[in-house]
């Protein structure tokens, strides 16, 4: 019920208090009553039952994406280290020093 969809503003009509937004390729007209003063073309907004609710903060979105990227890289690194460590351990266990 409270769901809403991120969309991009492609055209603002201040007189009509509406905007044309693009939701992954689908264009439609929405009310901008709640963000009329600040909304601009190119903004990302959340659409709920025919109205834009807010302007999505791009910097915050990018910041989140960056944090997730760093988590993934850190995990990859840890995994690589784990694999390397286990290989070292295996060669330690080899009676002739890993040379067959």
């Amino acid at each position, binding site marked *: 019920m409270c769901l809403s969809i991120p969309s991009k503003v492609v055209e603002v009509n201040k007189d009509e208090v509406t905007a044309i937004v693009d939701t992954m390729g689908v264009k439609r007209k929405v009310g901008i009553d709640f963000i009329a003063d600040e909304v601009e073309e190119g903004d990302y907004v959340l659409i709920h039952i025919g109205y834009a609710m807010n302007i999505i903060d791009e910097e915050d979105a990018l910041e989140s994406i960056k944090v*997730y990227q760093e988590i993934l890289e850190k995990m990859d690194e840890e995994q690589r280290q784990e694999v390397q460590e286990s290989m070292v351990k295996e060669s330690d266990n080899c009676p002739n020093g890993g040379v067959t």
Partner: protein
Amino acid sequence: MSLQLKDLYDKFRDPATIKALAKLIGEEAKKLERPINVMEVCGGHTHTIMKYGLKQLLPESIEFIHGPGCPVCIMPKERIDHAYILAQQPDVILVTLGDMIKVPGSKGSLQDARSKGADVRFVYSPLDALKIAVENPDKTVIFFAIGFETTTPMTAALMDQAIERGLKNLLFHINHVTVPEVMKELIDSRDVHVDSYNNRIDAFIGPSHVSVIAGAKIYEPFPRAYHRPVVVSGFEPVDVMEGVLMLVKQFSEKRCELEVQYRRSVTYEGNLKAQAMINKYFEKRGLFKWRGLGNIPDSALKLRDEYAKFDAEKRYADILPKEEIEDHKLCICGDILRGMAKPTECQVFSTACKPSSPLGSCMVSSEGACAAYYKYGGVM
């Protein structure tokens, strides 16, 4: 790097990121002194948790409790009966959002009313009601308004437009409800039917689209007065997982705070313009009955007295019943909503009570806990 629209979808649904966050949650959860029960208040969050199987990715020490955040599910039968009765009046067109199509009252659903010849129209946006009123000047159009803080400003905007255009044939039946009051009720009940002192809620994932409008500030009392931390999280699976991680960290670090995970869309103050619009037309209702939970003080809105002439409840007071209708005796939705029971523990779950023929509130809409369990196989 600039943001692309598809990033707002893909990056927050990325399976590798979900798994990585699950691993971090698992590590953090090892520091917990005891298991914690996290209530996701909003049906949208419940849906995400079930759809992406998030529970299965979490350690056993973290349990989800599914909350009452589904305005369709909690609509008591007597209110749906109002809509049903209004729709049957001659010269009335009843307009409501599509979510209300199948919800049964004691007389049937609005879909049933329509099949019996009533003029009921399900719309995508309240603005569609304006168009219907303009096109049918000889009919009375009644907008049956539902939803939380997220949806209330759109009803207010419709009212604004109707007044501006001088429309005389558009009335409103208001059923808007508010989130913090029901959260308080779940912890600290004053209803004789509800023994909330047995509730098992340790923390809340706060509904975030509610906060896009009302701000994160509405959850301020919970850490402070009730000692329950709140993290306002987005609806994508990565958002929910990060929200859970933030909550677990609060417990392991012995903090109890209000935090916002969904910073890209939620501010502390919210959308002040939308709030002003809500306050212009609406005020608190004394008591409102929530299906499955009983009467909750100050948990719903009504039209202000100066707009009485637009109020369908007042205009049709003589034909709208005031009596409460009891919930189904076998239904344990009230217990489910307070985290005392799981849907699968209900004796009518998936037998007498299904999405196609719901007996209780949690099965009524796809966002209800029982309906989500039914759809996604009750794997939790």
